[in-house]
């Protein structure tokens, strides 16, 4: 008996992701959720610029590829045009939190009814490991070679906390993918976000703490440990906004 089949939400294309990168797990979760909600045939995904730029080759639904940072603007155009469709963006931290922060905040503020899957790995992965707005203090990158310095670069930006302040957001949660328990939690969070979208509740965003072993110069296991030990203290996990909870 086959226990782990390829999700109907994924194409048969082999991904280009590096060994130990969590994009693979995250793609699988998003794909499974879209399949389980039975919405694949009415879903339009928005691929962004970054390592996930080719995600239009992997998600088994209609896709649009966005310019750097503009995914939430595209998603606005699609969802307003086709209100009965399911729309999601899949973005990294450079794309969403730096060059696309205006698009992200204003889509959230308008309460646009789509879902953002936000993979935060504290670096620009595809371009070779430059400093991102989310890079941790002290983290060495190719553009902060002595480590990120507070006085020079500021602190890492916390998008889940920022977006939770905005009235238009319906659901904001930060999760990680370091072990089975957290992978299951991530899936529950993503399913909730898409369910809220189907219920028309507004902007939903799941921030997923992600690994980049290659640019972090770590093996995959050490990278997973880094998420728990270094990222979680700065980017705490949890639900930051849930419009269905009144407390």
């Amino acid at each position: 008996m086959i226990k782990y089949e390829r999700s109907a939400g994924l194409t048969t294309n082999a991904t280009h992701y590096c060994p130990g990168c969590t994009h693979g797990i995250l793609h699988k979760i998003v794909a499974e959720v879209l399949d389980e909600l039975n919405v694949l045939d009415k879903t339009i995904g928005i691929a962004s610029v970054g390592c996930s730029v080719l995600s239009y080759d992997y998600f088994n639904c209609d896709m649009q590829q966005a310019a750097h940072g503009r995914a939430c603007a595209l998603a606005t155009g699609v969802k307003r045009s086709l209100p009965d469709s399911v729309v999601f963006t899949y973005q990294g931290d450079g794309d969403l939190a730096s060059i696309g922060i205006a698009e992200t905040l204003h889509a959230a503020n308008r309460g646009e009814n789509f879902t953002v899957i936000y993979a935060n790995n504290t670096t620009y992965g595809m371009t070779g490991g430059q400093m991102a707005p989310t890079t941790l203090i002290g983290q060495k990158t190719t553009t902060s070679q002595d480590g990120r310095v507070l006085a020079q670069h500021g602190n890492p930006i916390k998008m889940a906390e920022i977006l939770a302040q905005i009235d238009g957001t319906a659901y904001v949660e930060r999760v990680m993918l370091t072990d089975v328990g957290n992978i299951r939690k991530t899936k529950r969070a993503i399913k909730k976000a898409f369910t809220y979208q189907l219920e028309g509740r507004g902007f939903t965003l799941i921030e997923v703490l992600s690994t980049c072993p290659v640019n972090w110069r770590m093996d995959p296991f050490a990278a997973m440990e880094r998420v728990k030990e270094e990222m979680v203290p700065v980017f705490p996990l949890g639900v930051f906004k849930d419009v269905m909870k009144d407390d």
Partner: protein
Amino acid sequence: MSKVLMKGNEAIARAAMKAGLDCFFGYPITPQNEVPEYLSKLMLDEGKVFVQAESEVSAINMVYGAAGAGKRVMTSSSSVGIALKQEGISYLCGAELPCVIGSVMRGGPGLGSIQPSQGDYYQATRGGGNGDYNVVVLAPESVQETVDLMKEAFDIADQYRNPVMVLADGLIGQMMEAVDLDRPVKERKLPPKTWASTGTRNHEGRNIINSLFLQAQDLEAHNLRLQAKYKEITKNEVQFEMINMENPDYVIVAYGTTARICRSAIQSLAENGVNVGMIRPITLWPYPKKAFDLIPKTTKGILVAEMSHGQMLDDVLISNKGRFPVAFYGRSGGMVPEPEEIVEAILTFDERVVD
């Protein structure tokens, strides 16, 4: 149909509605604010999509999303705002998405002024986005022609899966004229949008809207397909008007507001015994190069008149192929030439000849 009196900017909005506009995304900028202002009411009243975006950049990317979803979409802006849209325009061309961009030119460079100008000819016809791409550019000289070209713009966009820009200036945007909104446009057989990303329940296979081709040979093949399309547009879509072209002493080349001013100048020159004709390009890209083959050999020269310091001049020099002396007269910064200035430019033609 009966005529109604309206501003150029209102005409842009109402003609777009007549053309079946589904979605408008824009950002406020003078001197085109009436376009989104009218549409914000008209579109919502008809249950259509109107979003005031957080930026010009965002607006053009919303256009991308909605155009990719198969809708009739437009944005409108002016000079500095169009500058911000250039990234998106390149992507729209790369992904072959049809849309209409209204551009109401003001003075530049930089923040410039809010007065009429034609300083964005390069911006429209050459663009500031990356890569080998072309946008169809239509340049009306009256409010009625703005209406007609706006309606045609949506059809051209859909026929070729390419952005079309309607390039007016602040004068046309702000002036009022009587227009007929229902003048018929050329009948076209438009292809169904089978490529649109509307969800796989609506079509066979997956539809991907994309401008990324990582393999060099794939991107070159894509570029060659685009070039073939641009060639087809150049063959089919050139529009221009020839005015008084029987044995003129001189030929003026002017578009938009400047062409109108030149009409008056041509009249007073005729009264003084100087016979002047005019080529009025209506499509700025593709440029009406073939019009220059129709200039009688006895013509003494070509005067290019623009509200800029010589941008369309380049296309005239290319199209002229060295056949006639070319002179230039331009004003800028929001200064609109008087007909007398054009008359004077013709009378002092020899001093104005450019190399």
